[in-house]
């Protein structure tokens, strides 16, 4: 306990821990340019704070009422104002504002109106209560909650462009180390781009209150090396595994309400309210990133999603132990 207590803050401040979501550990161009800008803003604000705060402290000490002063009872000289002084503390802040504004405008335009390279990857992101749907129109892949994108070499950038909307309420896509957040709003298309420059896992979570389980709508972005990404694409493009040893589980799956909400490509399951399960077993986590994808966790989730996510829209399936084991085995076969 004590170890966790002291090691986590140090780890998160340095930004190098596996769980880091610090905006001061940028790993992509948009996050980098925001980081640089934020350092400028922080420096200016710190300077203003030290100047004004210092003056205030000085005034409080220098002009405090001293009871044992000879003329303590006398009122101090009354000064009503000064146009020159008013002007100076109007003009100087205006100059600072103009400077800050120009620096900011540059980054706004550079990020939002960034020219799109021809070989950028497109991903459609759809927010749901309380999970993420990812569709790769160029590659014919549909997946959920774990976004895989290629690493982008700064010399030959291959950014990923996210086209975003929502199936229900407002959500917001925020992976602090890669970029600022962009909202996913129903009836509206937003776009943003990310270009992670080193391979790894980048975490984040929904940043716009979207309902009961807003807290457990976690984001996982895997930046894969070109070879890894190609392998992942190939595996996701394959049809669902058909393993005869889990036929009992397949039957449970197909004879229950599972198929009204979930898709397993190539089967009768074509529902779209819940995450696509075609390659469920290839994911590291379930329940939108909130628990590791182990048979025990999956079984507990199917039995009653409220075990991990109270308020999740998936109902408890009321399966008996035999069916639960069978359907868990089936789902774990969907590599």
């Amino acid at each position: 306990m004590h170890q966790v207590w002291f090691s986590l803050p140090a780890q998160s401040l340095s930004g190098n821990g596996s769980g880091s979501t610090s905006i001061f550990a940028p790993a992509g161009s948009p996050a980098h340019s925001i980081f640089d800008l934020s350092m400028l803003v922080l420096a200016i604000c710190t300077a203003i704070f030290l100047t004004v705060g210092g003056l205030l402290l000085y005034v409080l000490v220098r002009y405090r009422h001293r009871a044992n002063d000879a003329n303590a009872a006398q009122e101090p000289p009354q000064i009503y104002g000064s146009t020159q002084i008013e002007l100076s503390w109007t003009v100087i802040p205006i100059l600072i504002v103009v400077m800050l504004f120009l620096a900011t405008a540059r980054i706004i335009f550079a990020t939002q109106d960034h020219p799109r390279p021809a070989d950028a990857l497109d991903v459609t992101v759809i927010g749901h209560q309380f999970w993420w749907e990812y569709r790769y129109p160029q590659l014919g892949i549909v997946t959920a909650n774990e976004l895989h994108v290629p690493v982008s070499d700064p010399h030959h950038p291959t950014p990923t462009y996210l086209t975003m909307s929502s199936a229900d309420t407002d959500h917001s896509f925020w992976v602090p180390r890669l970029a600022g957040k962009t909202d996913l709003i129903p009836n509206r298309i937003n776009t943003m781009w990310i270009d992670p420059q080193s391979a790894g896992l980048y975490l984040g979570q929904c940043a716009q209150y979207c309902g009961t389980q807003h807290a457990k709508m976690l984001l996982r972005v895997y930046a894969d090396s070109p070879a890894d990404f190609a392998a992942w694409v190939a595996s996701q493009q394959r049809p669902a595994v058909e393993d005869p040893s889990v036929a009992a589980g397949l039957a449970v799956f197909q004879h229950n309400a599972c198929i009204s909400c979930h898709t397993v490509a190539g089967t009768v399951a074509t529902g779209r309210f819940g995450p696509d399960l075609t390659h469920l077993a290839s994911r590291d986590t379930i329940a939108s990133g909130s628990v590791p994808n182990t048979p025990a966790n999956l079984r507990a989730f199917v039995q009653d999603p409220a075990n991990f996510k109270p308020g999740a829209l998936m109902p408890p399936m009321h399966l008996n132990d035999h069916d639960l084991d069978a359907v868990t085995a089936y789902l774990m076969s969907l590599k």
Partner: protein
Amino acid sequence: MATQATPNLSQPAGSEHTAPRRIWVEVLHDWVTTVDHKKIGLMYIGYALVFLVIAGFEALLMRVQLSLPNNHFVSPQVFNQLFTMHGTTMVFFVGMPILFGFGNYLIPLMIGARDMAFPRLNAFSFWISAFGGLLLYFSYLGASGLSGAGSAPDVGWWAYAPLTARAFSPGHSTDYWTLAILLSGIGTIGTAVNIVATTICMRCPGMKLNRMPLLVWLYLVMSCLVFVTISPLTAAQIMLMLDRYLGSHFFDTQAGGSAVLWMHFFWIFGHPEVYVLVLPAFGFANEIIPVFSRKAIFGYPAMVAASVGIGFISLSVWAHHMFTVGMTSGANTFFTLATMAISVPTGIKIFNWLATLWGGKIHFTASMMFAIGFLFQFLIAGLTGIMLSVAPFDWQLGGSYFVVAHFHYVLVGAILFMLFSAFYYWFPKMSGRMLSEKLGKWHFWLFLIGFHVTFDLMHIPGLEGMPRRIYTYEADRGWMMWNMAISCGAVIQTVATLLFVYNMIWSYFKGPVAGPDPWDAWTLEWSTTSPPPQYNFAETPTVESRRPLWDLKHPLDPDSHYE
């Protein structure tokens, strides 16, 4: 009412022995039917303090839940209700009523008037606002129908569409929220009308606009802002009700409505609302800082210009709450500039307060200590505000705990500190008795420590990626230590607030008698008894400068020579 034989200060002391002791029904009847601006002001303050304690308790429950990751102290449903009720209560049923309470009490006294311009409207506004607050909390009992269990609203205080649509918010909790805001809005507009009419029409002879106390100026600007901001909010609430019950589709995205439209409606209210709350706090500072520095306010015309400037600019900054909704780069640039521009008049105010302190003789009373706390904290809140105005920085910080820390710095660090300062300053006028200075200083230091532990540290998890409005968080993010410390700070603030409540009750009965002018102050309210008689002034005062009592006390060197 006037015909009742009510004992008050205006009568000779002996009459209390002859007048029969009133039974509680008569006292109650007196308060419920009153149209006296002072009594209405006190009722505003009283009901806001009750809601302050309730909403503070809600905050405390949230902090217990967040002190550890994956905590199960409250369920996500309850947590979402807590932050919705906390935010709604604090803004609509604490912040505005308590400021209107002070305004109601002080404005007629400061401008030498007998009462507000429309005393009956005043009473109506109070009661309709109070009814709104009760309606909001009735949702805990009756939001699912009288026979069902209650459920408080859980859509957040800004209630973004389409979460408020019936598809996502069945039951009536959202309706109670809508109705509560609607009623509070009617009351707010009524009082704002009253304040504007009072300041324009009821000033005593000699009190030209440029001699009006700055507090009254700020209430005037604030009331004008109320017209422009509460109206769209009220319109949006009506549209939302139409959506929910009459089949319109303004915000119903499933039928082609626009979620962004609601955001515009809400924030054209929501951002000027911050200034509606903070301008009166500036007003308190403009009265209290000069008195305890023993100097006239520095740059009165600049202070008025800055206040009016803030009022206007604040109407063009609302979409900085929407930097992440996918506006064009041009729109983001505009709202960055507008938001940064507001720091110029705000800076002017801080510099003028500084110049008022400069060369003075600063008396560190409890009231002044809270005012100085306000100055420091408002400076920091302004600077984090500049950071958030930088749209790209906001793409990271918006919707995170950094924002929560920033606006609590404004609402608690600036406004609540200035409110405490105002309580220590005007409580003697309102009750006739001084608050205990010793308890006041304990209150100040405890609250200061609790405040900084909570809200300084709260910036950090925001920088580390912690979004707001989550009922729990992952253990591997490194947010635990900060959250634990933040929660401890909340406990310290609670203790300090209880001390303040105790101080008010104790001092009301046992505090030293204040006399008409305990602070040797300069504005008209100190020229009458404490508490003032029902008619305020035995004869209508006439003023010749901004500080009429200074002129009286220094007949050889009056302000009127210099203005």
